[in-house]
């Protein structure tokens, strides 16, 4: 099958969801064409818009991978944002406790703190699955809420910045800040690492023995077991790996953007990560491209809300519809 033929259902899905949402937008009395122009082109009109898009692209790619890696092994990780926040806490902890260290030590420590904390947050549901056979969907979801409250606690606890109005921690040490690629508007170097991680995950799952075992487990756990793969260990590995990558996203948020923890810093990364992962159908190679597309829509959505007063949720529904239509294209092809 040629690439064009492969992409056709996606294109149709995008067009169909834009048409469906467009009808609704015009019924609400808004200018559809202006709305869609804003959504699609804000990212490409100004350098600021493009960098905003790249900044969104980083956590979205990582959170989508945090979902697709376990999905490759046949497990659903719905806890990416909790793992990301845990990663943020781990990174901030390192950056605040060892604030005086030079960048060459502190920066890796901050990143590592995030990755380890995220991996631990993924390990708990994985362990519950391994030991007690508890459905990972529920435990990963519930640990999101635990992480959100933990962040609020950390922001009001001993590391609280008394000068700030809203509960936040103090800034992490200057050495823990990610170097900037572009200064104005700011773009941190986490994007390079994120792209490397995405390439690494793609190579791991499609070109290595370990990754093949993981994918085989997801494709048919019973057959994988017969061939001597320890499938339950693969479940654990996939969830911990997913957690670590989500934790990295949290570390970037702290080291690259905020330089501190902020109460309620969670956003809709979880849902968008899941949508990206599902639109990619678990194909890690497709994830960065879909993530970029969703980042474009998200940046366009905020611009649309600012200039046209159309709520950002409109675009979120468009994204959910794209997912639904992509899934439907499978059914059409089966027939």
């Amino acid at each position, binding site marked *: 099958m040629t690439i064009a033929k492969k992409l056709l259902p996606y294109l149709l899905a995008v067009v169909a969801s834009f048409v469906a949402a467009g009808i609704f937008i015009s019924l*609400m009395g808004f200018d559809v064409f202006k709305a869609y122009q804003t959504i699609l082109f804000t990212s490409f009109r100004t350098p600021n818009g493009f960098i905003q898009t790249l900044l969104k692209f980083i956590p979205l790619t990582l959170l989508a991978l945090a979902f697709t890696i376990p999905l490759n092994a046949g497990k*659903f990780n*719905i806890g990416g944002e909790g793992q990301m926040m845990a990663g943020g806490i781990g990174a901030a902890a390192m950056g605040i406790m060892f604030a005086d260290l030079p960048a060459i030590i502190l920066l890796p420590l901050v990143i590592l703190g995030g990755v380890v904390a995220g991996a631990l947050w993924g390990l708990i549901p994985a362990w*519950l699955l391994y030991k*007690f*056979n*508890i*459905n990972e*969907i*529920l*435990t990963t*979801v*519930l*640990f*999101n*809420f*635990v992480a959100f*409250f*933990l962040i*609020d*606690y950390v922001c*009001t*606890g001993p590391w609280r910045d008394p000068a700030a109005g809203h509960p936040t921690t103090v800034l992490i040490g200057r050495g823990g800040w990610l170097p900037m690629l572009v200064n104005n508007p700011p773009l941190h170097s986490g994007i390079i690492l994120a792209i490397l991680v995405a390439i690494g995950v793609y190579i791991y799952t499609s070109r290595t023995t370990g990754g093949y075992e993981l994918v085989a487990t997801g494709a048919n756990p019973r057959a994988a077991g017969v061939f001597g793969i320890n499938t339950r260990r693969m479940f654990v590995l996939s969830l911990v790996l997913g957690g670590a990558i989500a934790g990295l996203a949290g570390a970037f948020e702290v080291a690259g953007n905020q330089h501190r923890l902020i109460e309620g810093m969670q956003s809709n990364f979880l*849902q968008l990560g*899941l*949508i990206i992962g*599902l639109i990619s159908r678990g194909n890690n190679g497709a994830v960065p491209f879909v993530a970029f597309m969703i980042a474009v829509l998200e940046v366009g959505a905020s611009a649309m809300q600012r200039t046209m007063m159309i*709520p950002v*949720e*409109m675009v*979120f*529904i468009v*994204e*959910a*519809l794209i*997912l*639904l239509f992509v*899934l*439907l294209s*499978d*059914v059409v092809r089966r027939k």
Partner: protein
Amino acid sequence: MDTTIIDFLRLVLLSMVPFVLAGQGTMLGGRTGVFNVAQEGMMLVGASVGFLVSFFSGSILLGVIVAMLSGALFGLALAYFTTSLKMNQFVIGLALFFIGLGVSTLLPKLILGITLTPPLIPTLKSIPIPLLSQTPFIGPILFKQNILVYVSVLVSIGLWYFLFKTQKGLELRSVGEYPMTADSLGINTTKMRYWSTIIGGMLIGMAGAYLPMVYAGTFTEGMTMGRGWLAIALTFFGGWSPLPILYGSLFFSAVEVLAFRVQVIGSFLPYQILQMFPYIATILVMILTFKRSRVPGFLGNNYDREKRSL
């Protein structure tokens, strides 16, 4: 002391309603094999729509009805995609969860605009049952509640009777255990799956509508706070049976009320740690009970009568 206990138990019954209704809704769909994971989104839509309709019509009853219809619509979509199109239940459930999440915040923003002071609706009044509410101790706990507390208990008992005491109920359960056998006996498995998911969706929508009508008097973004997900845990905890789900919801609600109460009274624990309590307690309960939990045999699967094996 006595009044504190009465007060606490009264609140536990008051707060169990979303758990009971969402749990029964999940159970009903699951009993025909449809595993719904869109509760959180469906409850949010129920809350949003229920609030908006009550606010504009001035009728809470109408609000509840429209919330139930919105739940039914999601249930119908779930049934169509899984039963007719045979798509993966988790994936479709997640997609519906996203749509629900988006719609629930979009509607109030579009209709009311972005306001700092959201309008309020009157909260549900308690309806004392004559004579019974005069009984000491249990009177104020059991019989001075709002109408939906009574409804949720009646729904639970009704579902138990239907599922375990009637022929149709037996047929419905058989679809969730061995659809092939059920099919060979002439039971319309498709119809069963549609109806159980639609009615289940109505109950979940009603569970959502309860939140603005009892707690806040208004809709706030994400106000379910994971109750939809907790309802799934509750359903497993209750072994996919109506009466154990009803009892189990008392536990879930007691944890919620307790965590809230301790926050108000104040304790050595920071309030954020107390807020984690319901989620951690749920996970502990899952560890203790999941191994023994009875689950419908065909849960999460789609039945294709044209395939030789399942």
